[in-house]
């Protein structure tokens, strides 16, 4: 690690980071939620929470994040799954992604969530990263992560991807930023209709997962969600699933340690043999989890077969607007949706 630091420092001697080192910061380890919130600041980018460190540490080392204070929230936040009155489960934000993937109740009641958790990164990342960290990680866009490119998200006045290298960027949304949302857990959260509990200095508030993630505008482009700098996401509350079936399909180039090209979570409620309601949400295709309402409509009232799944998948990507190099992602997203629908119906796919 020391060698990597040195190389990076030499490479940036001529520009970018003037200090040639990670900016010094103070570090606090609050013991509970209240202490953690009072350690945060309402001013953006000054104080940053740290849990598993799978995002923040990389941003510090890449000189993309330069906080004055880092608040270790591992001990302050809940790391367990607790049942809710009336059904449903409450997942603590400090829970490890690996523990979520293997949690018996999650596997039984919300299998798509468990599958998504099991596909995150590598075993090491899953055993270090947390649920809250996965949901709140910053974009993995290679322009955002490179200190030399001062993009919209870093206070600049452009997104470098439309005229640059955009093979992994968004095919939905239309800018001004073309990131894809990096969280694997965000997509099943929206598909299952989860609610996030946020805690701040004025108390708690509940936000539906679908409303938590925000599409970029010129005003809010520096963030990906509604979480204020002095708030923490403390819990993910999954409603009682009811008699639904769910499927999750992720298309990744490599078998492990690779970001998905596109993925989809499908949650369907059946009425006998036909679909009564469906929720189809795509990931890695837009700056937020991307709900495909046209696909939901196409599937409603139908039996799930190869043909109806393909028709719904076609509807899911009909409005895609790819950039110069990511046209192939339309086909990949279509396949992810089709296979997630088939998997939800118990039909095995590749």
């Amino acid at each position, binding site marked *: 690690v020391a060698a990597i630091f040195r190389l990076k420092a030499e490479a940036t001697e001529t520009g970018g980071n003037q200090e040639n080192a990670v900016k010094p910061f103070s570090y606090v380890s609050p013991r509970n939620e209240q202490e953690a919130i009072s350690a945060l600041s309402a001013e953006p980018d000054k104080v940053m929470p740290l849990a598993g460190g799978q995002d923040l540490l990389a941003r510090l080392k890449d000189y993309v994040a330069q906080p004055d204070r880092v608040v270790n929230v591992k001990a302050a936040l809940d790391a367990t799954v607790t049942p809710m009155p009336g059904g449903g489960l409450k997942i603590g934000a400090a829970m490890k992604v690996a523990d979520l993937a293997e949690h018996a109740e999650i596997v039984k009641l919300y299998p798509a969530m468990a599958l998504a958790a099991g596909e995150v990164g590598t075993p090491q990342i899953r055993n270090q990263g947390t649920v809250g960290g996965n949901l709140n990680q910053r974009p*993995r866009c*290679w*322009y955002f992560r*490179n200190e*030399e*490119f001062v993009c919209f998200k870093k206070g600049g006045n452009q997104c*470098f991807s439309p*005229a*640059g*290298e955009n*093979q992994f960027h968004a095919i939905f949304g239309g800018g001004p930023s073309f990131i894809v949302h990096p969280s694997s857990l965000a997509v099943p959260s929206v598909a299952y209709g989860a609610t996030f509990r946020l805690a701040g200095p004025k108390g708690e508030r509940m936000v539906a997962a679908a409303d938590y993630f925000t599409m970029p505008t010129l005003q809010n482009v520096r963030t990906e969600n509604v979480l204020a700098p002095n708030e923490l996401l403390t819990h993910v509350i999954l409603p009682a699933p009811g008699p639904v079936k769910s499927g999750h399909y992720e*298309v990744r*180039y*490599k*078998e*492990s*340690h*690779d*970001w998905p*090209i596109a993925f989809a979570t499908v949650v369907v409620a059946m009425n006998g043999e036909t679909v009564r309601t469906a929720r189809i949400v795509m990931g890695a295709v837009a700056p937020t989890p991307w709900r495909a309402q046209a696909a939901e409509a196409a599937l409603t009232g139908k039996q799930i077969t190869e043909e109806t799944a393909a028709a719904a998948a076609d509807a899911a990507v009909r409005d895609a607007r790819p950039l110069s*190099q*990511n*046209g*192939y992602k339309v*086909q*990949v997203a*279509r*396949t992810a949706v*089709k296979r997630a629908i088939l998997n939800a119906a118990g039909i095995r796919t*590749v």
Partner: protein
Amino acid sequence: VQFAEVSVDIETGIVKVKRVLVVQDCGLVVSKLTAESQVYGGVIGSLNFALFEDRILDRNTGQMVNPNMEWYLLAGMSDIPKIDVRLVDQPERGVIGIGEPPTVSTAAAITNAVRNAIGVTVRSLPLTPAKILQTLAQQRPTSSA
């Protein structure tokens, strides 16, 4: 000589290498273990060349946008196929090198196997899903599009 067996998912463009068979001449085999080990390494290196390794430069600034293990892809354990090595032991030729030869044919064998599987040729490496899908789309009759 190398042979490769691949599967190509034509709906996602993803190539998986199932098996590589290597028949390698290296004159007198001094140490079978290390000679075979050299071949395994060469095959894996060339598999990365065929499928993954790609230095992506920003077209406007010339900056490399993937200077990290996150976006500069290399095969992980589960991306590496079964590799069978048959060394051709020819003591009469004396000791000759085996440093680079095993890395030469793998990428060609994989690319030819992909052509054999999908019926169209991808003309540049790495064989990314983007290139496979684009090549398939271009060469298919328009009626199925």
